[in-house]
């Protein structure tokens, strides 16, 4: 990974490295899981209307975190905060902090373009570019100015996306000719080509058939070894199947139902959320009593 190479070179150039933590002498208790996103009191406003309120949680490294909840509860809005995609909406405003790699993504001096190079996203409806499969994958690395053998970068990405064997003989054909499931795996591979360390997935399987869905879920389980994944899903069984942590969002109605704000009800280990949740609302949702 180029980030690693860059960082190694830099570390070699700068002899003063960060002090290493002292090796523990006694058997350590269960190691605290590393945090990739420290989300601190995030509120999102569209104009005057608050879309999500007071979200505070830690997303962990190399895990799959699922965001579940009924429609309109702000899950997509929240996940789009993680890679500054809400910037694209003129009336949107994000308050709060998201600490990633020691920096607050919403600090004034942060470059959103750089953020998106490190935090990749896959959308609900597959959106391949009207170009060849090869050019789709190569697009991210090319705009980044990644040096290196593009053929190799493309192959690596397609292998990571579990698509290489199917398309290796037709890399130059137009991506629009692929099936929906293949297109979505292409979009995943495309996101991986820029070597991010996080993959955000906004309902990636909702437009796909069950077989494609299964393949993508298998892919996610493989990917989490190297990447941290956050997934928004309407499908509770999917959340239960693949995720390590689950956050349950709900909708709060104000002003006689005219004003909807999303909020996190409960966040915890997936097993607990689905078998023994703390909050009654969570229990009602996962047992299908509503939503």
């Amino acid at each position, binding site marked *: 990974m180029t980030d690693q190479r860059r960082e190694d070179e830099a570390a070699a150039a700068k002899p003063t490295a960060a002090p290493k933590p002292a090796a523990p002498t006694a058997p350590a208790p269960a190691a605290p899981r590393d945090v990739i996103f420290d989300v601190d009191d995030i509120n999102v406003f569209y104009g005057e209307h608050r879309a999500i309120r007071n979200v505070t949680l830690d997303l962990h490294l190399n895990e799959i975190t699922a965001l579940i909840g009924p429609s309109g509860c702000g899950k997509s809005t929240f996940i789009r905060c993680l890679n500054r995609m809400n910037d694209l909406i*003129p009336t949107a405003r994000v308050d709060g902090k998201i600490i990633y790699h020691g920096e607050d993504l919403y600090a004034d001096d942060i470059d959103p373009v750089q953020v998106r190079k490190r935090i990749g996203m896959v959308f609900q409806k597959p959106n391949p570019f009207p170009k060849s499969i090869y050019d789709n994958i190569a697009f991210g690395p090319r*705009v980044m100015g990644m040096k290196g053998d593009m053929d190799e970068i493309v192959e690596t990405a397609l292998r990571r996306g579990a698509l290489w064997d199917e398309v290796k003989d037709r890399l130059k054909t137009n991506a629009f000719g692929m099936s929906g499931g293949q297109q979505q795996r292409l979009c995943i591979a495309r996101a991986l080509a820029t070597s991010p360390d996080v993959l955000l997935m906004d309902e990636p399987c909702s437009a796909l058939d069950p077989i494609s869905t299964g393949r993508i879920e298998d892919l996610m389980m493989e990917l989490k070894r190297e990447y941290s994944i956050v997934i928004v899903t309407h499908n509770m069984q999917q959340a239960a199947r693949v995720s390590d942590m689950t956050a349950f969002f709900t909708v709060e109605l104000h002003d006689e139902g005219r004003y909807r704000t999303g909020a996190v009800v409960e966040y915890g280990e997936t097993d607990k959320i689905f078998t023994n949740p703390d909050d009654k609302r969570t229990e009602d949702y996962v047992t299908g009593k509503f939503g």
Partner: protein
Amino acid sequence: MTGAQIAERAARRAVIPQASGADRAFATFFRVLMYTAVGISMLALVTLLYDVARDGLPKVSWDFLTSFPSRIIPENSGIESAIWGTLWLMAVCAAIVVPLGIATAIYLEEYADRTKWWNRLVEVNIQNLAAVPSVVYGILGLAFIVRGPLDLGRVVLAGGITLALLVLPVVIIVAREAIRAVPPSIREGSLALGATQWQTIWKQVLPGSIAGIMTGIILALSRAIGETAPLIVIGAAVNPRFNPDGLGSAFTALPIQIFAWTTDKDREFVELAAAAILVMMVVLLLMNSFAIFLRNRYEQKW
């Protein structure tokens, strides 16, 4: 018919009232009106083409295309200077309108914040400019470009700029539509990969809309070819016996030559006008067909 069938028919008549004779008569009358209307349009086109072809076809020849116009001898008159003048004008017009029109369209569609009043002013202004009569653009050309601040004189560059300003609003409007046809999901996908706004536009939006943009530009240029009034007002030359030799050269154009011959007292020259019209319409037909071909072959289906 069986008794059952008779009964069924009677029942149907009772439930569904028979259309009244007056209603049906009116409906027929209205249909006749519509056919007449459509017929009038077709008749107009056919008669027009027939008239032009009848008068002009005998006069079209290679000599006609390669001679200069003569004020006195119709037999020796041709449209060479008019053809070259038109080509020069179109080249200048295209060179201005293509970058300016596309750039404006990109700005309005991709960069402009529509809540800001000045951006809305630009949009409204373009719609107004599209409705300004072409003769007023001629006045602008005369006062500002030929004389006035730019003071270029009655030259090709002045004519080209004037025509460019005339068709620019149309090009902008068409280019905007083509750009708008690119789905937002493509832009989102590109930005999510860490591309900048301009990278997204240059590598995704423009390639995806270029076919529509080009079609629109060709159609706008074919409109510019037929424009007469602005060229009259800025002082295109009449019956010149030379081709333009540069941007600073005097010029004529096909519509101007047609105008001069149409209003001539001599019937012979009037027939030459018809011949010139035929040549111009062939050029227009070729351009429009090319535009349609481009659109069918290269248009991006999303």
